[in-house]
């Protein structure tokens, strides 16, 4: 293209964008899949026997840059202990008007008692409701985050909402490829390892398949999942549009 015509490059670009699909999602109707490491509302985890992991050490409150965590530890009652250690988190409060979801509390926690789910629907009409207590934060008996009535839980969201990875973990290191670096969740179990530098990644298992599918029109060709590329991608697309009769019978 001659240099003079470069002026019209902007016109060309904007015109071509008309044909491209919108990035915006009409949120309440449609929900975009979440990033595998998204930082959302906290949960307080428990062991398999129902004991709370929190030992009331207040390290999370100490490290919090936004000063939003308030913890009070208390000695475990000898006859019915709440946590396996000496002390337990008697009061645990997080003020979500202050929390910046940096996950430093998760990094600091020695027992992995506090992790973050991917739920982002916070809804409160006054300041005191913004402070979540143990009542809201502790996971349920199955080990999943509580389904708070104002949160928008949809199909498939519970499976991939738990599990966390240290921000300092060498995930980009090729040697760590295929090694699971997520923590195990009581409810969701252990998630598959993230893809590393090579092309071998299991998007289905790591929960990023939906995400790649949603961004397929906007990501680079080399980042496209393999089952969406070429003829196989076309076939899969058609399959997704028309569910086969067998599936209908099974339901």
């Amino acid at each position: 293209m001659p240099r003079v015509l470069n002026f019209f490059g902007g016109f060309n670009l904007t015109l071509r964008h008309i044909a491209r699909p919108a990035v915006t999602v009409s949120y309440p109707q449609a929900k975009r899949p979440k990033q595998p490491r998204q930082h959302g509302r906290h949960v307080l985890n428990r062991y398999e026997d129902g004991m709370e992991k929190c030992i009331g050490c207040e390290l999370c409150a100490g490290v919090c840059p936004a000063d939003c965590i308030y913890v009070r530890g208390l000695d475990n009652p000898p006859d019915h202990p709440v946590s396996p250690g000496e002390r337990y988190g008697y009061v645990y409060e997080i003020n979500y008007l202050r929390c910046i979801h940096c996950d430093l509390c998760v990094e600091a926690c020695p027992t992995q008692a506090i992790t973050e789910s991917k739920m982002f629907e916070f809804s409160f009409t006054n300041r005191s409701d913004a402070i979540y207590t143990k009542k809201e934060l502790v996971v349920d008996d199955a080990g999943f985050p509580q389904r708070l009535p104002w949160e928008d839980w949809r199909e498939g969201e519970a499976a991939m909402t738990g599990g966390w990875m240290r921000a300092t973990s060498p995930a980009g290191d090729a040697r760590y490829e295929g090694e699971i670096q997520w923590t195990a969740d009581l409810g969701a179990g252990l998630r598959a390892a993230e893809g590393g530098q090579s092309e071998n990644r299991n998007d289905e298992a790591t929960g990023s398949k939906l995400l790649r599918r949603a961004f397929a029109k906007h990501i680079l060709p080399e980042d496209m999942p393999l089952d969406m590329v070429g003829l196989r991608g076309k076939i899969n697309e058609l399959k997704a549009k028309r569910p086969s009769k067998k599936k209908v019978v099974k339901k």
Partner: protein
Amino acid sequence: MNWLASVDPLYAHGTTGVVILIAVIKLVVGFASIMGAVTLMIWFERKAISKMQSRIGPQRWGPFGLLQTLADGIKLFFKEDLIPAEADRFVFKLAPYLSLVPALITFSIVPVGGTLHIAGHAVQLQIANPPMGILVMLAMSGISVYGVMLAGWASGSKYPLISSVRASAQMISYEAALGMTIVTIILATGSLSTHDIVTSQAHGVWHWNLIRLGIVPFVVFLIAITAELNRPPFDVVEAETELVGGFNTEYSSIRFALFYLAEFMNTITMSAILVTLFFGGPAGYVPPVPHFAWVFPIIWFLGKTVAFAFAYIWFRAALPRFRYDQLMDLGWKRLIPLSLGWMLIVAGFLVNRWWGISMIVTVVIGWFVLTRAYALGADRTTGAESVLPEVGRRPTPSRLYRQRTSKGEK
């Protein structure tokens, strides 16, 4: 009555009740359609630009969000109407109308279609066909400068004032280039009336002023009219990064809505004027359909106007905003000499070939002289540097003076 008949064939058989009725109907239909067109234009702009930016745009009210403008209008209508304490209350209230009414009046001279015959009366499909024709448009764009300028001044606030000063300077400087291209068209047509300008282009694409006058007047007109409308990339008047909201920062409620309305009405009107002047207005292929042949010129006109309305939206999506000095450079150093030179050439060729060639020579010489002048002027120092020497070369206080002052301090 004779004078009226010379203006508009509608009055050829005298001003009867039917004639007045037809005139009133024309007025009402014209007003209603321009108002409807403005709401559609606002929707179109928002939808098209969001498409260009990979967004969705208005979608909640009505099919495809078509009623979004109406919803916005209702919302603005019921909002609190604030007048700043420092404002000049009368001028503050007057200014929105000074920018809305010219936009409405300008549209009245645009020929929308051909000539209809209703009950023995020849009805031109344009609201008015005054003999001064296109000069009405120039006059009205002159008045709409007052709307912007007085709005900024009467707000009693700093940013609107800066914005209005910019606006008036910009609109006045681009009006010169605008007027010069219009003069070129008037010379070629031999008439001021928009109806005559359109009929002179009616005999096919090669008679359109776009091609007949060369592409240059069209390009100059398009740029000048975009600047005249204060639309991007010439919207230094509303540069949000520099001036909060521009001249209408202090406006709220229905007065703000009026400015908004006027802006988009101007966009439509100027697209229509552009089509009238350069693209033959309603001219185009009319298939031989009995009774409904009059519809096709209207469709041609609408199609061309929508194309230019889209072009303005496209400009907004594609081009970054001009800096203020670049804007003035483009207006004064490029467009005005260009339109003036082209007018001379066209005028020369209208007389005879030799005048035309001599005019080309004159313009080329003038162009070289101007280029040389700009090159000479580019090196000169302006601003503070032209008065103060550079920092290293400034006279420093003498040693004696320094010793005295330092002693005094101790």
